[in-house]
């Protein structure tokens, strides 16, 4: 049995589009990618389609991932999340927003007590930010709003919102142990 490759080896092989790297990334990060898509889309089938389509697009696109883009895990997480947000926005354009809000997300049997602790970990980290950084970051991460929409909603200049989001994100990443 081949030992699990390290992050560096995986990144190099993924950038070189070696097939085993795709399979390894899928097996290793699949749960995170699925969960990320599910939290945006609220539906198991949509989440699964989103992950599969995002990964297929990444794999087929030349030069989509290079070593300088950092860890494969982070890169794929953002790809999947952005694909999910794009789908959600397209869906919102097709349907009245209130219909989407009224639709109950499907129950997920696997959500356990440990997950509540994880949810608290994100919320707790957010609470460490000053309100002027926390609010725009929450609107961006949980409500999928653009910086233009957030600036309008908070009645702040666009440049101010951009700066606060960038600063808040870096602080939050550090608090959550993101690699630097």
């Amino acid at each position, binding site marked *: 049995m081949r030992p699990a490759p390290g992050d560096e080896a995986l990144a190099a092989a993924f950038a070189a589009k070696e097939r085993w790297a795709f399979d390894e990334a899928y097996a290793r990060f699949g749960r995170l990618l699925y969960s990320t898509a599910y939290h945006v889309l609220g539906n198991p089938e949509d989440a699964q389609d989103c*992950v599969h389509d995002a990964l*297929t697009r990444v794999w087929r696109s030349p030069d989509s991932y290079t070593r300088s*883009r*950092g860890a494969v895990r982070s890169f794929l997480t*953002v790809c999947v999340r952005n694909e999910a947000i794009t789908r959600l926005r397209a869906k919102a354009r097709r349907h009245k927003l209130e219909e989407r809000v009224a639709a109950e997300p499907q129950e997920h049997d696997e959500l356990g007590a440990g997950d509540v602790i994880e949810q608290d970990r994100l919320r707790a980290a957010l609470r460490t930010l000053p309100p002027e950084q926390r609010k725009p970051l929450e609107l961006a991460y949980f409500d999928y709003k*653009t910086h233009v929409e957030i600036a309008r909603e908070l009645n702040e200049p666009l440049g101010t919102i*951009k700066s606060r989001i960038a600063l808040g*994100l870096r602080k939050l990443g550090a608090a959550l142990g993101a690699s630097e």
Partner: protein
Amino acid sequence: MTDHLGELAALYALGMLEPAEQRAADEHLAHCDACRRHLAQAESDVAAMAAAQPQLEPPARFFAPAPAPPARKSSPYNGWLALAAALLIAVLPAGYLLQANLAMHQDMATDAQAIARVASSPHRTVRFSGADARVMYAPDGSWYCIVIRGASAPLHVLWPHDGTTTMLGTAMPHGDVALLYLPKSHRMEHLTLMQGDREVGQAQLVF
């Protein structure tokens, strides 16, 4: 974009950029190693947020089969496939694009890779019984393209499975042809065509 991304890297990683900003950022990233590294940090921060949310167990089918990155293999066109590709590229009018499959058809009309998927990916074709219709589909169930000739009204495509029926979408007629493209991840072995409440065709797919 000639300037470095700067604070836009955080917005890029959070999926907040407007489409035009996103395109400009992608163009810049293609030749700026410093900005790729800057973006990598922001992506690491966003991934840390995602990992701090509840982690869910995907359905069993999520991992089996894995979405294999298909090899690019040429496949001979047939009449139905040429018709589908032509519709996607040239015939769909703006009004049609505003129908229920808006995002999907926009993707198909604008994304050359999606066109290539239909036109050149390995696929199988099955005829619907009772209707002048075909379904072309990937052997791994990753996409389906339903083309109906002689369609005068919208046709609904349904998937009966596991004691229930899932409404997959509606093929809207353009002229006398209706088409529905479905990027999916499941192997759907049975499809039903409905016009209103009336069943007009069935197809059995083999995987």
